[in-house]
Each structure stands twice: as structure tokens, then as C-alpha cells.
């Protein structure tokens, strides 16, 4: 029986618009979230989102269906973001943050009471602010590991670094966030 990945690979080889539409629908939030964490700017992330799907269409024949589609998709998104940054070489990922855009991420889902909601929102705002201060290299692996729930080997394949480097980046990223996580100053 054909696996889901094999079906996707077949659809991408044939550049089937129905398959692509369904994939865009299915992975819209995950891809945008990843690009947003990578760039820190919603407008840039949305541009890269569209660019990523165009590249998925063009490079679709390279997906063999052996790995999870989401890993391959994120690696395309990673490459698109890298290409964008190379074109804007003097600007680092941290500098790409829009100064006008104070709250890049939408507030979290509902909470039990207004008090709890306010406290939780404050915590999330502090967390997002702290996360943006973390080096993009560490931020990327943190997002892939803890938000996208990817395996260390998948992250290594996606970012094209050894597993040992993935572990080092996670360790350092978590260490950089520690003051906030332990309730200290941002």
C-alpha cells in the first residue's frame, strides 16, 4: 500500500495543483511559524512563505518520499531564508526585526480568567522578546525541536549540520533563555 509520503512525492513529480493546494492548506501554520521565528518579521516571513511553495513546486521532483514531507518542506524554507539573507548580507537575522512591529506573534489561545490571561500573555511576551534576543542559529533549532517536535536527526538533515552541533545549539539556546525561564530579568 502506498504511504502518504509516496503519494505526496507522486503528486509533486506530476506538479498536481490539487496536491499542492492540499499541502499548502495542511502545512500553512507550521511553515509560517518556522519562517517567522527565523526572520522575526511577519512581512518577510509571508514573502518567504510564498517563495518556499514556489520552490516546492519547482523542486518537487527531488522529493523521494523516503523522509517525512514536513522535514523536506522545512529544509526548503530554510534554504529560501538563507538565500534571502545572502541577498541582504549586511543585515543579520536579528536586525531584520521590524522596529514598528512590537508584537510579532499573535497572543496565545484563551485562558481561564482575565488575571490568568494577563499573566500568561505577559509571560509569552517576555518569552518572545527573550527568544528574539537568542542567536538565530540557536533559535532555529529550539523551534524545530520544541515547537515542531522534530527528532535530532531530522533537524540535522534539515539544517545540514551534525547531530552533535544540533545538541550543542539546543543546549546553548536553552541556556540563553534560562534567566527568563527561571523568572529572572529579561
Amino acid at each position, binding site marked *: 500500500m502506498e504511504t502518504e509520503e509516496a503519494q505526496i512525492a507522486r503528486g509533486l513529480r506530476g506538479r498536481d495543483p490539487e496536491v499542492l493546494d492540499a499541502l499548502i492548506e495542511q502545512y*500553512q501554520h507550521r511553515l509560517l511559524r518556522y519562517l517567522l521565528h527565523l526572520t522575526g518579521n511577519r512581512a518577510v516571513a509571508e514573502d518567504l512563505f510564498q517563495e518556499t511553495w514556489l520552490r516546492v513546486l519547482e523542486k518537487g521532483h527531488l522529493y523521494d518520499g523516503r523522509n517525512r514531507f514536513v522535514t523536506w518542506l522545512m529544509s526548503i524554507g530554510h534554504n529560501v531564508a538563507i538565500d534571502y539573507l545572502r541577498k541582504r548580507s549586511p543585515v543579520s537575522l536579528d536586525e531584520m526585526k521590524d522596529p514598528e512591529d512590537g508584537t510579532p506573534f499573535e497572543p496565545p*489561545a484563551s485562558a481561564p480568567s482575565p488575571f490568568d490571561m494577563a499573566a500568561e500573555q505577559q509571560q509569552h511576551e517576555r518569552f518572545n522578546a527573550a527568544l528574539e534576543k537568542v542567536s538565530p542559529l540557536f533559535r532555529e533549532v529550539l523551534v524545530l525541536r520544541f515547537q515542531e517536535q522534530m527528532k535530532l536527526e531530522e533537524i540535522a538533515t534539515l539544517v545540514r549540520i551534525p547531530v552533535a552541533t544540533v545538541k550543542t545549539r539546543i543546549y546553548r539556546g536553552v541556556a540563553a533563555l534560562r534567566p527568563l525561564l527561571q523568572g529572572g530579568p529579561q
Partner: protein
Amino acid sequence: MTAREHERALDLIMRRGTEEIAAPESAWLNSHLSECSECANFAADCDSTGRLLRAVAVTASPSLVQATQTRVRARAAELQERQSRTVLIAISFCIGAMSSTMSAWLWWRFGGWVAQRLALPASIVEPGVFVAWMLPAVAIAVAMLASSHPVIDRSLTMNILREHQEGGRQ
């Protein structure tokens, strides 16, 4: 406690939640965490990071999704058209090359006959034969260039994109 044990504990902490960890390994990790405050703190920080990251709600707007789907469809049609044209050009090139190869000998003989009958010098006849020999390929190239209008009408897609952009501006 050795550095190797800490390294093993950190590896297991980073893997748990996304990968299957054998029961003995899990038991060993729990025992290590109860004794090692440094690793226990790291495990707690990983849990907090995951909890906070997963609570961040980022959603793609329906207009972004729709615009992406429209662009992808337009690009797919463009690639399809380009592929069709490439196949057509390749077939035409093969036909041109075959007909030129097969007719080369005949053209050369014909040129020789014309030169003999009209008493023309070789400096005129040889380039003439060459041009005549190239004629099928030239004719095909001209025909291909003349028909270089898009096979697929993309005006509808372009209109959708334009309307979407105008809607976004408003």
C-alpha cells in the same frame, strides 16, 4: 559522576518527547536526574521552553494561503507550458537535423551540377549549397520563433493576482 554520564543524560533529555526511549534508559535518566541538579535544571528548562514555544499561536491568514495557491497554480501552468515547448523544440530539432543529414549529399551533388551547367566558380556555389542545406533548420527556427506566443492563456490567472493585490492594498 562522570562527564560521559552527563552527556548521556543530556542526549536523552533532548530526545525524550519526540523519540522512543527504552524503559531501562528512561529509568537510568530518572535516577540520574534525582541525583544531578545540573541535568535536572536543564530538563526543567527544556520542558518550559517547549511549553512556552508551543503556546505561541501563529496562524497564516486565509488571504496569504489563497494568494500562495494562486501563485503556485500560475507558476505550475507556466512550467507546464515551458515543458511542452521544450519537447516541441526538441522534436523539431531532431527532424531538422535528420532531414539536413539525409539531404546533404543530394544538395552537394545538385550544387556540383549547377556549377557545371552555369560555369560558376566554387566560391559562389559552395556557400550557396551550404545555405540551401541549412534551409530546413532555419525554416523550423523561424517558425518556432514566430509561434512564440503563450500556448496557455494566463490572462485569467493574472487578473486573479491583480485583484488579490488590489484587495490587499485596500
